[in-house]
């Protein structure tokens, strides 16, 4: 039908029959044959490409037309096979769009054929009528294409709704004739008589490769996605066929990869086929729900929060959780990164892992496990390498030095910003804080089931769009951790167990922070076996954990202590001292502001210094005080850097956070249920 003149088809089939009969009789017609093969090659290529990229065509396929012709039913029956299918022995689905374009192209006389596949992003809400407009678009294009050689008509005029369009693939089918050599070489080959046959066979193979390649490229995912769920989407695919290339900018081209098929050499020229494509959909700006999901899933599973739960369902829980969560997170992040950048490359979680090990070695893994849990939230952000996060955090060295007590201040001041500005992982920290803070009712704690969500966080970071989701997810993760916390703190037993297990940490705590670092070192030697495990990472946690057990301090510590690790603690101290010495008067204002903020928001950890004493269980009040004093100093140093405006900002952010948390924490029941679970966890760890 689409073939205007039926004669064309007859001719084709007749020609093919001749070819297959391998009759070399008509040497005269060789050039004609070749030309016809080339023409058909172009047509077939176009058909293959458009068939797998044109949404309308495919939908039509499955419905009406094909049933009539019922080509699928029987290849064997000659009736089912159309002449068009016989070309290159490749039976394709009907694709009206493709055939239209083919017809148009036939008139263009072996000019190069450039097929651009365009991803169109429409305004939301336009989708409802998607089908009709789309077809219109296609028709429109084809109409414009009728004008010779200048088919790439602008679509802008036609579609005011179009938000943006991007070329995601450019296929170039080209026949380059070597006219210069025609006289000499071609003659000899022609005499051979094989040229049309070999051309046919090679082009036949090439078309099969094209058929497969079209389905292996990322754009096919978009096609499938839009085809299945397309009605709802604000994206669509279009294509245009031109005879010349509208060159890409360098930037555009840099994003794309080129795949060149081995050209088919013929006596009189060569037939070449190549494609420029976007290797990843992300660069295109297309975020298909389904296609991307597979990538996210692994993260999801491995997400830090998830891992701890899965790993430690059994009695072992207590020990593993500490190390594992931190561990898991780091891994997940590293994975994410690797995945995002290069899925093909083998992710090497181990390297990231190795680094953490160095730090942790100090701590005794044994003591730490139960306590470590709380720390995780702060760690996550660090591991994430979230740019925003990093910015807000003080330099790692600084934080490291104060690791035990002083760090508390840091987190307080810094955290709020982190939360506010970066919606991603860091957010989780606040949630954890809430759980600890006595003032915060359990109800505020987000419902459980954090584990699955948390996994996503890692992946989500990549996409800004998902930030809100992350937030929720993160909280979920934090809640789990919190629950464990609460259980520990609330249950006197737990704290006691912790104490016994983590005797050294406590001591360190009571003493000055500097001493802590020393003790840690000692501990390391003692606990080496454990440390060897996996969990050097755990060690940092363990420190934090010990603190946690006592009171609210742990989180702040974690934030400060994690990264710094044991590296250059002295240096860090030096920095701190320097900062303190040079601290401007500003600090007073700051401290005031901070305190006020703290008062207003019990949730935030920063305040912990003030509130901590109350919260902290009993044994360590003295130690806490020491820590506090230390913390104050450090805090002042930090504060110096900030302005009152910043403080206000933080305050606001806190308020917002609080609102958010409150709104989310409606499920008080869930919280209640969580608490017991947490306790069990804590006990389990203790038992271990």
């Amino acid at each position, binding site marked *: 039908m689409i073939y205007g003149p039926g004669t064309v088809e007859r001719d084709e089939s007749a020609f093919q029959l001749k070819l*297959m009969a391998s009759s070399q009789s008509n040497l005269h017609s060789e050039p004609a044959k070749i030309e016809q093969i080339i023409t058909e090659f172009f047509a077939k290529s176009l058909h293959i490409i458009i068939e797998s990229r044109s949404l309308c065509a495919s939908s039509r396929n499955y419905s009406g037309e094909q049933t009539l012709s019922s080509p699928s039913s029987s*290849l*064997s029956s000659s009736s089912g*096979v159309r002449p068009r*299918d016989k070309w290159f*022995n*490749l*039976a*394709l689905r009907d694709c009206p769009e493709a055939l239209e374009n083919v017809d148009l192209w036939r008139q263009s006389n072996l000019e190069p054929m450039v097929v651009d596949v365009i991803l169109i992003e429409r305004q939301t809400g336009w989708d409802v009528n998607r089908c009709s407009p789309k077809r219109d678009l296609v028709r429109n294009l084809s109409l414009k294409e009728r004008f010779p050689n200048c088919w790439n008509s602008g679509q802008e005029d036609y579609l005011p709704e179009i938000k943006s369009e991007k070329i995601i693939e450019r296929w170039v089918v080209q026949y380059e004739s070597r006219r210069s050599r025609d006289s000499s070489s071609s003659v000899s080959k022609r005499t051979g008589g094989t040229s049309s046959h*070999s051309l046919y066979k*090679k082009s*036949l*193979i*090439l078309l*099969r*490769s094209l*058929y*497969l*390649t079209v*389905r*292996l490229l990322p754009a096919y*995912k978009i096609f*499938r996605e839009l085809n299945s769920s397309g009605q709802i989407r604000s994206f669509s695919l279009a294509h245009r066929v031109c005879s010349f290339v509208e060159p890409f900018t360098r930037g555009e081209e840099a994003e794309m990869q080129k*795949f060149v*098929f*081995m050209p088919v050499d013929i006596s009189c020229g060569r037939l070449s086929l190549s494609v420029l494509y976007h290797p990843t959909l992300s660069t295109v700006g297309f975020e298909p729900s389904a296609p991307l999901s*597979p*990538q996210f899933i*692994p*993260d999801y*599973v*491995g997400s830090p929060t*998830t*891992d*701890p739960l*899965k*790993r430690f369902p*059994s009695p*072992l829980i207590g*020990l*593993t959780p500490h*190390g*594992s969560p931190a*561990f*898991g997170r780091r*891994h*997940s992040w590293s*994975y994410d990164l*690797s*995945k995002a950048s290069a*899925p*093909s490359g*083998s*992710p090497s979680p*181990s390297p990231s*892992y190795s680094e953490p090990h160095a730090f942790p070695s100090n701590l005794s893994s044994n003591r730490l496990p139960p306590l470590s849990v709380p720390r995780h939230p702060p760690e996550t952000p660090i591991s994430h390498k979230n740019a925003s996060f990093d910015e807000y955090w003080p330099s790692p060295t600084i934080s490291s030095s104060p690791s035990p007590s002083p760090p508390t201040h840091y987190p307080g001041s810094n955290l709020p910003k982190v939360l506010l500005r970066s919606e991603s992982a860091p957010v989780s920290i606040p949630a954890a804080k809430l759980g600890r803070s006595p003032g915060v009712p359990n109800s505020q704690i987000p419902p459980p089931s954090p584990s699955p969500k948390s996994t996503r966080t890692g992946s989500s970071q990549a996409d800004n769009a998902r930030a809100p989701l992350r937030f929720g997810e993160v909280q979920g993760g934090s809640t789990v951790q919190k629950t464990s916390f609460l259980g520990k703190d609330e249950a006197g037993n737990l704290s006691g167990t912790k104490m016994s297990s983590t005797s050294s940490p406590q001591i360190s705590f009571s003493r000055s922070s500097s001493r802590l670092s020393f003790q840690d070192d000692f501990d390391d030697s003692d606990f080496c076996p454990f440390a*060897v*495990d*996996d*969990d050097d990472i755990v060690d940092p946690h363990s420190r934090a954990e010990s603190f946690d057990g006592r009171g609210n301090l742990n989180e702040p510590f974690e934030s400060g202590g994690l990264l710094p690790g044991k590296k250059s603690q002295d240096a860090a101290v030096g920095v701190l001292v320097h900062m303190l010495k040079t601290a401007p008067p500003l600090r007073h204002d700051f401290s005031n502001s901070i305190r006020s903020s703290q008062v207003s928001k019990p949730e935030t950890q920063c305040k912990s210094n003030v509130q901590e004493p109350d919260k902290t269980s009993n044994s360590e009040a003295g130690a806490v005080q020491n820590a506090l004093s230390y913390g104050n100093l450090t805090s002042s140093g930090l504060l110096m850097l900030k302005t009152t405006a910043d403080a206000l900002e933080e305050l606001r952010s806190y308020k917002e956070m609080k609102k958010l948390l409150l709104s989310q924490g409606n499920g008080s029941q869930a919280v209640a249920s969580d608490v017991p679970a947490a306790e069990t966890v804590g006990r389990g760890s203790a038992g271990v």
Partner: protein
Amino acid sequence: MNCEVCHLKELDVEHFEIREVLRCILHTIVFHRALGLIRPKDIDSELFDITYVQCGDAEVEKKIEEKIDQFIGWVEKHPNKKSQICLSFYEVKNKQATWFSNKIERLYWEQWYINLNVAQHPKAHSSKSHHSKMVVDPGESTLERGVRRATLEAALREVLLFQIIKFVNEKRDHIPPVPNHEGVSFPYEIALPSSSDSSFGMDMFKRMLQTGHPTMLS
């Protein structure tokens, strides 16, 4: 006649992935050698985010499935071994005078070696890392599995797209004339690692005829 040989990049697979990986590869190769009239069939892999193409021939599909079953059986008997599957295309020639009777000989003109490294345990990889020391690491393994899966998928895609497609288009001169124009035009066989199993590898053609060669694989 020269026989072109293509060794495909070795893929690290787990046991449960063997089937899908082999489907993708075998069908892709056969698709490119089915020079008769075919109506391609798009198949979305059950395991990977990959769409590959079958040539729409039920016989081929059946045969490939059988071979895969046999291969999986072999892997179970020979765990922890690297294994190779060979897909060969050949021509059948009559040898006349020199033999007592008419004997039929296979002339191989193309062979594809598919190399798989089958991990015995899903966690085989974890041994490299510290995770293995974790007391309980189901979560870990799932995480690793996800990553590993993505890696395998990328590698598989590369094999399909770059290795097979490139080879198929670069080596075109050795392909014999198309004997028939329906579907899968050339006789082929799929040989499995163990010689004892190779008898299964005969294709229908071969079963009817006597063969001059034992299967190529040892």
